[in-house]
């Protein structure tokens, strides 16, 4: 089980052939109270960098990008009624979608936890 991060503040939890994707604690904190989340439909083929989900807070609306290439397995339906899960549990119950791993080499190029932490410190 590995967690990887993108510079667009997505996290990717890799478990076997499946990647679970959400936005980081840093991202939810910067966005403020989340009021709406749109997750992708199962079966959608996505390429790395595609905008696949939308997150809306009281302050702004942002796209969430596919961190890797693959196919969407499922979106987190719970977020439809409880978008606040993204604030309360960004890297747990507030996950956005699960997807297949089309090209494992893309994961190698993402940041690890220490790398992401350093990246965020550079932003402040």
């Amino acid at each position, binding site marked *: 089980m590995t967690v990887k991060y993108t510079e667009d503040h997505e996290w990717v939890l890799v478990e076997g052939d499946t990647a679970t994707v959400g936005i980081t604690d840093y991202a939810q904190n910067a966005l403020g*109270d989340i*009021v*709406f989340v749109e997750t992708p439909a199962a079966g959608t083929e996505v390429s790395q960098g595609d905008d696949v989900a939308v997150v*809306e807070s*009281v*302050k*702004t*609306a942002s796209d969430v990008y596919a961190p890797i290439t693959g196919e969407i397995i499922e979106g987190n339906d719970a977020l439809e009624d409880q*978008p*606040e899960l993204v604030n309360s549990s960004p890297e747990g119950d507030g996950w956005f979608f699960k997807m297949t791993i089309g090209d494992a080499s893309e994961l190698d190029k993402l940041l690890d936890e220490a790398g992401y932490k350093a990246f965020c410190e550079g932003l402040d």
Partner: protein
Amino acid sequence: MSDLHTITGNQGLQIEEPLIFEQDTPGKCGVDLPDVPEVKTRLGGLAREGKIGLPGMTEPDTVRHYMRLSQKNYAIDTGFYPLGSCTMKHNPRLNEKMARLGGLADLHPLQPNSTVQGALELIDQCAHWLKELTGMPAVAMSPAAGAHGELCGLMAARAAHEAKGNPRKIVLCPESAHGTNPATAAACGYKVESIPATSDGRVDLDALKAALNEDVAAIMLTNPNTCGLFERDIVEIAEAVHAVGAYFYCDGANFNAIMGRVRPGDLGIDCMHINLHKTFSTPHGGGGPGSGPVVLSAALAPYAPVPYVVDTGDGFKLVEHKADSDQDPFGRIKGFHGQMGMFIRSLSYMMSHGSDGLRQASGDAVLNANYLKAKLQDMLTVSFPDGPCMHEVLFDDRFLKDTGVTTLDFAKMMIDEGVHPMTMYFPLVVHGALLMEPTETENKATLDKFIHMIREMTQKAKDGAAESFKSAPMLTPRRRLDETKAARSPVLKWTEAAE
């Protein structure tokens, strides 16, 4: 409300006002109607059985209700309104006088054209001024407001591409674009690609050039941009866009900064909407409607939507149908002829100012924004401090760092001070944005009072008064509203309480 409790719940002139439905008294009525005679229903069982849902009110109660609501409103006629990118300038009363002239106010849009020649001439004259000011050969007058104008411009661009056999796929928008730009592109069936900004707040020309190819239908750019900066590379951008056969859409929301000084047509722009309700002083922000004519280059002019006015030399003709046009209009996007009342008001504004007056208006708008910048830059953090800004100045929240006060808290306290807050958290390219646009219609005394207020507030924040910011506003009819709950579980309709 303040902590002072009154018996009535009112606070002096601030009257506590329930919803009109909560004031419903069945049987009360504002007019004395005769008894309804017995009629044999011919509705075949479709007659309404339930209540019609209108509150029973007397006329004086109704008048007071709306008067009291209006008194809770903050308008440009109330005070300073520095809402960035919205150009909340004074609406001259001369415009209102002209719009109320019987010969214009009492027209019906279905009157025969022979009886409305003056009105058609007025539309033609207003169009003439807009074409002169922008250096563009054509203008579509009918769009209802800014975003509708964007839609019109992009539909013209799409029609032009389709006429060449390929509508193309992509529209480029810079990161700092008004949110309506990517929304318009998506509504026209295009994929939106974002162009990053440089560290000085302008479009990254190299990134733009790298993104240009023959799939790109258009670029949508605001100039001056939403950071309040003039896009210096605009001519080079236009050349690069045209080199791949794409069109250049300019968001004209910020035309107030360059009116009478720069003609978009000279910059290589193909289409630009003009917010008559901003630059040309017609009312907006609840007092509208808006109006968003779109000027078009020679390349896009043939696709302008119907209806449009033609000066035949022997009177004015209104071309209302595609079949009657000798051009290739993409269709119709608005009922009737556009916002006639706003054409009257903006023509009144243009003619009363004259070309020299319009030029001075844009100059003064830029001067006022730079005055704010100069007087606040030592206490607030200017996002792009190098060189002058245009008609609006962008600050970010670095000056609030470690104070515990956010941009939102700062804005809420401005409400207690009786000033409409600036635009906040937009544009997104800086953190915790505060975007201030004073407009040319504010005098130095007003600006000085505002500057004093902002400086004192900033000092308070830096002196550790975070708690008082967090509890603002204190003096409004309602205290800080739960914006999160309002967005998560909106209640959009009053419903009768269950008995």
